[in-house]
């Protein structure tokens, strides 16, 4: 079906901010201790898309990050590698080479990330380039310009085009809504519902390039959209909150949210990711603390 057909009969689902907050208070009151904490920390680490998206990125910087991705902290026992390394398309090849022999995936941001201000033709060219360079996953941005004008059909059309390119190449697609730019939670829900019509592999909160990145409210609303979509179609879609999550405790509460809203089936890096750069070290510090019983200091954990 094309975008027009998919959107016929589309009805926005209302969201209540206070209700969202009430739910989040309950989730944050969950206390994650002992075995659940160890298991959770390990899961969080394995779900991280270790990210570097700077104008200043160089091949060496990316190689260092890739080493960290495969060996987060060799001094600790049983530490998994992260899920993926997330870079600009021009650095995909470097990352791919550096990660050779590991399970760590290479994700490329695409479609004129972060603004998305370009033609679809250009966006597809860029995506094709990233795929040709060896990207396993594509993180695309939706066109906020068109979304904010109410041109939902075009927004969906773009996603469908990128999706079909990805599918053809067996590459997984994450759709970034950039929730900090599209307004209220009602709009977040609407953008989620539209993106989900294209059956992407993930929907993702943010580029991390503007002030307001992922938070629990936005993530909850997106998870609820994923659940409703799953109920309706049976198609499982993953979730990736990105930016702003830098401490292990918060990350564990995200996992509680996933578990309670979606279920155990989403609790793996196939269906849930954290887009983060600083989170990994806090998780490692907590893991070291769990193992030794001693509170840690940041200088004992490598920064790449």
């Amino acid at each position, binding site marked *: 079906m094309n975008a027009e057909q998919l959107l016929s009969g589309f009805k926005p*689902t*209302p*969201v*209540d901010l*206070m*209700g*969202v907050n*009430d*739910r989040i208070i*309950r989730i944050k*009151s*969950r*206390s*994650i*201790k*002992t*075995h*659940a*904490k160890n*298991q*959770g920390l390990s*899961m969080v680490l394995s779900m991280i898309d270790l990210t570097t998206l700077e104008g200043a990125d160089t091949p060496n910087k990316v190689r260092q990050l890739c080493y960290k991705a495969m060996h987060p902290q060799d001094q600790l026992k049983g530490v998994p590698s992260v899920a993926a390394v997330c870079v600009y398309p021009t650095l995909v090849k470097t990352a791919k080479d550096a990660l050779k022999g590991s399970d760590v995936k290479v994700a490329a941001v695409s479609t004129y990330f972060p603004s998305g201000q370009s033609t679809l033709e250009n966006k597809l060219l860029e995506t094709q380039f990233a795929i040709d360079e060896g990207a396993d996953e594509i993180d695309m941005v939706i066109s906020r310009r068109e979304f904010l004008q109410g041109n939902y059909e075009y927004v969906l059309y773009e996603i469908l085009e990128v999706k079909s390119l990805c599918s053809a190449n067996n590459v997984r697609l994450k759709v970034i809504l950039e929730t900090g730019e599209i307004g209220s939670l009602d709009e977040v829900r609407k953008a989620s519902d539209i993106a989900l019509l294209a059956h992407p592999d993930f929907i993702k909160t943010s580029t991390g390039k503007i002030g307001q990145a992922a938070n629990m409210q936005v993530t909850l609303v997106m998870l*609820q959209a994923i659940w409703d979509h799953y*109920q309706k179609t049976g198609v499982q879609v993953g979730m990736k909150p990105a930016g702003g999550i830098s401490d292990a405790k918060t990350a564990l509460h995200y*996992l*509680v949210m996933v*578990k*309670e809203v979606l279920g*155990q089936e989403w*609790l*793996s890096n196939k269906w849930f990711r954290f887009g983060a750069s600083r989170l990994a070290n806090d998780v490692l510090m907590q893991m070291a603390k769990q193992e030794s019983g001693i509170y840690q200091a940041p200088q004992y954990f490598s920064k790449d």
Partner: protein
Amino acid sequence: MEEWNLSLAPENAAHVQLKKKYELFINGEFQKPFSNKYFETVNPATEQAIALVAEANEKDVDQAMKAAAEAYKPWSKLSGAERGKYIYRIARMIQEKSREFAVIESLDGGKPIRESRDIDIPLAAAHFFYYAGWADKLEYAFPMRKPQSLGVAAQIIPWNFPLLMAAWKIAPALACGNTVVLKPAETTPLTALKLAEVIQEAGLPQGVVNIITGAGKTGAEMCAHPIPNKLAFTGSTEVGKLVYKAALSGNKKVTLELGGKAADIIFDDAPIDATIEGIINGIYFNQGHVCCAGSRLFVQETVYEEILVKLKKRMNTLIVGDPMDKNTDIGAINSKEQLDVINRYLKIGRAEGAEIYQPNCKMPELGNWCPPTLFTNVAQSNRISQEEIFGPVLAIQTFRTIEEVIDKANNTPFGLSAGVWTDKGSKIFQLTKALKAGVIWANTFNKFDPTSPFGGYKESGFGREGGVHGLDAYLKFD
């Protein structure tokens, strides 16, 4: 991959100071009862006795009333500002000892520590804090009416929110210049007795607050006693009627906060996910031991299936068990007796042909437990949709039009609270106008605030607690 489940997260109870035996708090001191009798207060989650508590008889009640009457003379002459400062002190000390209060509340009553810690105790402190401020401002609340204190207030409170109900009763009474004899419920006396210790430590003049313990008989003695000028009761409608009768024959002012069978109304334009959370909070909060619980759910037929699927899914995530575990959502049923009542209604519901759903949750062997329960295929004429069950049991009915649901919602002898869920403001106000209930929550449920009056219509009682209107209950006017 191994399934991820929460590990045990027990609250530390080592810091709590509990006595083995509690006497009556009369005239500023803990006194042995004339009755010489004590009863056990039991932890409903473990069935272990926690402490012995004195049983007040007629003579004890008399002594407490006399102490309150004696204390009233100087207390009522104290300036409002000074009175207020005592109440502020109590508020602050509850805040200081809040964790200890929370742990005792959960041990004695079975409610999850999350609720006693985050709701009961902070609200109790807030109530004292709020009414403290009224003590020197009564003239502004009742201009041209010369508000004056009543005298001695006899107050009887239930077991569902032990400390919070004590705060609801004591704080406004003191702010208005009255003295108090309060009786907590026999299954949950410990936080009230801890409050007595706080009151002692706060240096409140002797006899201004007296806290006596005992069961229904003690309560009856209090109501029949000639001294109190005011009876305040929160509890069942059945007992409330007896209290009312006693008040009428003793010519006493009275407020009653009684039972309820609240309608929680879901329209198809509601924000559904928030609504699910509201339904859960409306009925499973405090094991459903809530007089204003949203126990009758009315769902518009167009969203019935969706609501049911989501509600069940959310119910499956609720953790039932040890009240002292920080992750527990539904704790222990307050007493064996109450569990029997609930189980009787579960039986009645089945017999009436309703369909029952309970998630498959693990429950401890010892103790009183009831999983979150819902009934579908329910009619207005079923007993489970008419009578107050006072447990985690929801009866779901469907409706087609707004007129129909208003009719059904009001079709009850109770009128304490109601809930409305819709994204449309004008519909909310139509409902708040049409529903006969003292508190109406729109797109939320079970919210309480010291500034907001609470109380019912019809057989749910009369008089309001909280806010400006809550002062009226403890004042007389020229």
